[in-house]
């Protein structure tokens, strides 16, 4: 049992990578995760969004709109992070436990394809859930935009204090209001969140290839995710700060080189405030995310390729 899957992997030539096999494994993972009732979170999300829509707090229209986006993105973030770590950490141990792993690897399926397929399945569930939540939020945002536009024009008139306001200024004010609506930048914010979750999933998968238990995997992956957010702080203040001591600089260098820079994907907060994210930067962010996914998948394969199962 232990030697046969490894021998299958070894005899398969490197160019036998089959996207179809990866897709089948991904579909199987989606089914498995759906049966674990991960989508039940969407009901909770819907309740949060509906409660926000009906909230009777004395918010100004823009504050109300930002609150809707904040809470929706916050709920999405909690879902993606918890799901990315927990669902991925459970994949390998569960496959070992119900012996699916042996069934799969006894077929002519390279271990790399197995890992890639499982990971793709996790990404797919994440993407479906995020898109569903985004659609609900976008609908609510659209419904509130009329009130926001009216308030922006009122604010312009109030600020002008009776002074004349030109049509250009009105148009500019409306353009400012539209920045808070459903924009491409808002979608890039969602995409950045998905990228971050994908990186965290891949790191978790890598940890799970050598971890002794699911709990260990979850703790280590959560720690990496946590430290990944201090990347920029390390860069800004410890490496470039002249007063930092040698120990601080060494720790900062290690943090920067070893851990993934997850703060790179934290653009949602500004996007919620209406800041525009250019497509070029979004694509570069995608490149960074893709780089991490490929890197940690390769690392996972390195550990997993001849691991005794």
């Amino acid at each position, binding site marked *: 049992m232990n030697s046969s899957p490894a021998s299958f992997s070894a005899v398969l030539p490197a160019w036998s990578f089959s996207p179809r096999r990866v897709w089948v494994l991904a579909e199987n993972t989606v089914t498995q995760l759906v049966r674990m009732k991960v989508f039940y979170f969407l009901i909770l999300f819907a309740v949060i969004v509906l409660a926000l829509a009906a909230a009777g707090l004395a918010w100004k229209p823009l504050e109300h709109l930002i609150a809707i986006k904040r809470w929706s993105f916050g709920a999405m973030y909690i879902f993606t992070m918890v799901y990315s770590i927990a669902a991925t950490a459970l994949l390998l141990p569960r496959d070992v436990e119900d012996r699916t792993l042996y069934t799969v690897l006894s077929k002519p399926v390279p271990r790399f394809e197995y890992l890639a397929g499982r990971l793709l399945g996790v990404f797919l569930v994440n993407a479906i859930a995020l898109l569903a939540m985004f659609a609900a939020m976008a609908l609510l945002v659209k419904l509130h935009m009329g009130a926001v536009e009216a308030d922006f024009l009122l604010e312009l008139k109030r600020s002008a204090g009776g002074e004349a306001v030109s049509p250009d200024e009105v148009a500019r004010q409306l353009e400012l209001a539209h920045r808070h609506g459903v924009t491409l930048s808002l979608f890039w914010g969602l995409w950045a969140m998905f990228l971050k979750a994908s990186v965290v999933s891949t790191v978790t998968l890598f940890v799970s290839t050598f971890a002794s238990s699911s709990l260990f995997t979850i703790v280590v992956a959560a720690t990496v995710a946590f430290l990944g957010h201090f990347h920029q702080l390390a860069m800004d203040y410890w490496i470039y700060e002249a007063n930092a001591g040698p120990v601080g600089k060494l720790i900062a260098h290690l943090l920067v080189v070893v851990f993934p*820079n997850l703060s790179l994907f934290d653009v*949602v907060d500004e996007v919620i405030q209406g800041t525009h994210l250019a497509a070029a930067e979004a694509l570069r962010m995608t490149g960074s995310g893709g780089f991490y996914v490929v890197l940690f998948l390769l690392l996972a394969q390195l550990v997993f390729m001849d691991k005794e199962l």
Partner: protein
Amino acid sequence: MSWGRKLGLLLALVTGSGLVRVPLESRLMSDLRAQGFHPVSRGGGLTEQVSVQGAIGLLGGLRYMVAAFLELEAFRLWEPPPNWNKLSETYHLVNLLQPRNVESWETAAWHHIYNASGYYRYDEKKLPPLQRELLAREFEERGIGVLKAGIQWNPDDCGLRLKLADAYRFKFKDYCSAAEVYRAAAEIPGAPAFCYRFYGYSLAKCPGKEREAHAALMNVYREGLEGFRKGEPLIWKPTLIVELNRLERELNVPEAERIPERFDEASFRIASPLFPRESYPLYRSIWERATQRGDAEADPGLIRIIRDLEKTQAIPEEERLPAARVGK
């Protein structure tokens, strides 16, 4: 492959990829910052910046949600009986977590400058009057500090500067400071044109700045004239005409360089040779009132404008201002 070799390869991959990606990521981060992401204060000290970056790092992508919780808490603190100190601390945290959220800086400043100070000045009855006044002033100063900090984090935002300038102008009657802030707001690309007009109006009330104020208000005057000639609505307001007339007198501007417009307080309308027919009775009415007050001499240009209009508009003799009354 042995575990030793595997570990070596793994470390080499992690380190090698790290060395490749760090410069690329730094460049991406700088570009994102240039677009307004990952805020860096332009005025805060290192400690403040580390606090903000630390809070952002600690909460990861959850900081906006935590900020939302804190804002709800602040909302509760505002309800009677208000806890202004706690509210002040809560908003400090909110702004620390989301320094690019202009709305929360504005709300925090509004609570400090208007609500808290008003509460201590008018509603709080348990404290002695002197202590109440001191507390009111303390919150006003804190509010000004909040707006200034918000401007440092959001140097490209016009709204925060307008709020600060409005506070100086309407609340504290500090027209010199207001003018300075309005001018800074007007210099922001895309700022509404009225920022510059408010700069002029405020500067006109700033002692010692009469010459600069006159120049600024003349710019507004010319802007209005040009717009009007292009068929746009006239942007002149009574304040503009009143302040220009006053500054011309104070600065002894030569008669020929003075503006011909006057403000008729009785009808609350501007008299201008641009509308000769409608303005003639307004000029007459202004002259009549000045004569009654006995200060018609203070505006020698007025009678010249009236006479010019009578000639150009062919005003019938019986409707003209009698020469005997003018004394010429």
